[in-house]
């Protein structure tokens, strides 16, 4: 395993050329990029929506998600998703 890209104080941002939006025709959030589209499941959509809305640290992002999802224990899932999203070149760390 390579070392984690995202730590509590990293700021995840969408990679160049990627756009996040709600797609009514797909009934889900999507990421659009040159000549392609990724359909996001609800969880991925919730995380990326917040990354798209404002610049904040991973810790702040998780705090916000906990408020939205009744204090659910989701730290590990968020970190895991961020690493996957980074591997897919959807996001980068600032």
């Amino acid at each position: 395993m390579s070392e984690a890209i995202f730590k509590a104080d990293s700021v995840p941002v969408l990679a160049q050329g990627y756009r996040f939006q709600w797609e009514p025709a797909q009934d889900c959030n999507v990421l659009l990029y040159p000549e392609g589209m990724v359909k996001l499941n609800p969880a991925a959509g919730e995380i990326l929506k917040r990354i798209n809305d404002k610049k904040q640290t991973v810790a702040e992002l998780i705090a916000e998600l906990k408020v939205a999802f009744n204090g659910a224990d989701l730290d590990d899932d968020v970190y895991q998703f961020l690493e996957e999203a980074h591997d897919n070149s959807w996001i980068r760390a600032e």
Partner: protein
Amino acid sequence: MTTAGSEQNKAPGSIGGATGMNVRDQIRQPLWLLAELTYSCPLQCPYCSNPMDFAKVKKELSTEEWISVFKQAREMGATQLGFSGGEPMTRPDLVELIKAARDLGFYTNLITSGVGLDSTKVAEFKEAGLDHIQVSFQASSEDLNNLIAGTDAFKHKIEMAKAVKANGYPMVLCFVTHRQNIDQIDEILDLCIELEADYVELATTQYYGWAMHNRDQLMPMKEQLNRAEAIAHRYQEEQKGKMKVYYVVPDYYEERPKACMNGWGNIFLTVTPDGTALPCHAARELPGMSLPNVKDMSVREIWEGSDDFNMFRGFEWMTEPCRSCDEKEKDFGGCRCQAFMLTGDATNADPVCSKSPHHHLIEEAVEAGRLESEKPVIEQKPLVFRNPKNSKQIAGK
């Protein structure tokens, strides 16, 4: 909470190859709209996929008509919009069209030769909301020599590349390779490095339209491809993390056909300069097409109800060996246009497939290219360049 289950869609580029876009589980939607805004072009590339008779098209759709098409396609689920042509920059309303498409929520892609693209234009496109620019270089050996030799053309390309990057776009370059330029692949890639390209697509000529007419003169030889592939792989290694190089083997040298358009009438909608809607940009040449026009019918009527778009949907239309083939859901029997051009019947297997009884036609085409290449230069057929004069002469009035 589970992590991202997602579907990756990668749609064809400008030249006509289809890469794996996988959206089986949903109702067919025209996810990709290719807007061929115009057949006007300052270039005369002999490998152009435009129809030979493009000069017949006099009247292009108006700004309002295009925007109506965008709106309709968007309502049906289209997310990707490619501005293509001809050279889309010859349309004076391009900025307006980009803005309208972007406001509708499209991811907007400009597919351009880069001729006439300067920092003012790029800034205007950016302001209008353009998402992505792909520059396709005309890479005849002469043009390439000019570029490599550092002429004005070369200086222009450098400036254009800088303008693209200064506006926050990645530099995406596409070179169409063929027998007469593929041996310069290392020089092409060095040029890309100099232009600080982020992505380079070494697209192989596909034989439609003008390219089909010039096939004997464009067909690369096996030895050339082997060399080119080795060089491409070397640059892929050396440029890792800096410049991404895509190299695709021409389908004439494959044993299985491409999953053309990811299936007929499945995700792709092309609208030509005069408003004709096509399941792919080469389909105009197929017999029996009714060629519905967006001026006469809604995009939904065309997509869902027209004979053209339903002609090769599903698997019922297939003949053997496709019909009983266990790979039919992977490649849909290949390209309908190629099947028709080579075998005379669009329901046949794409002869690229080694299971096709017509596969020998592919081998013969490669052989014809070899014979042509072995002739003394003076006896070789000249390339026929894509221009209005040749279009009128070849296609008649």
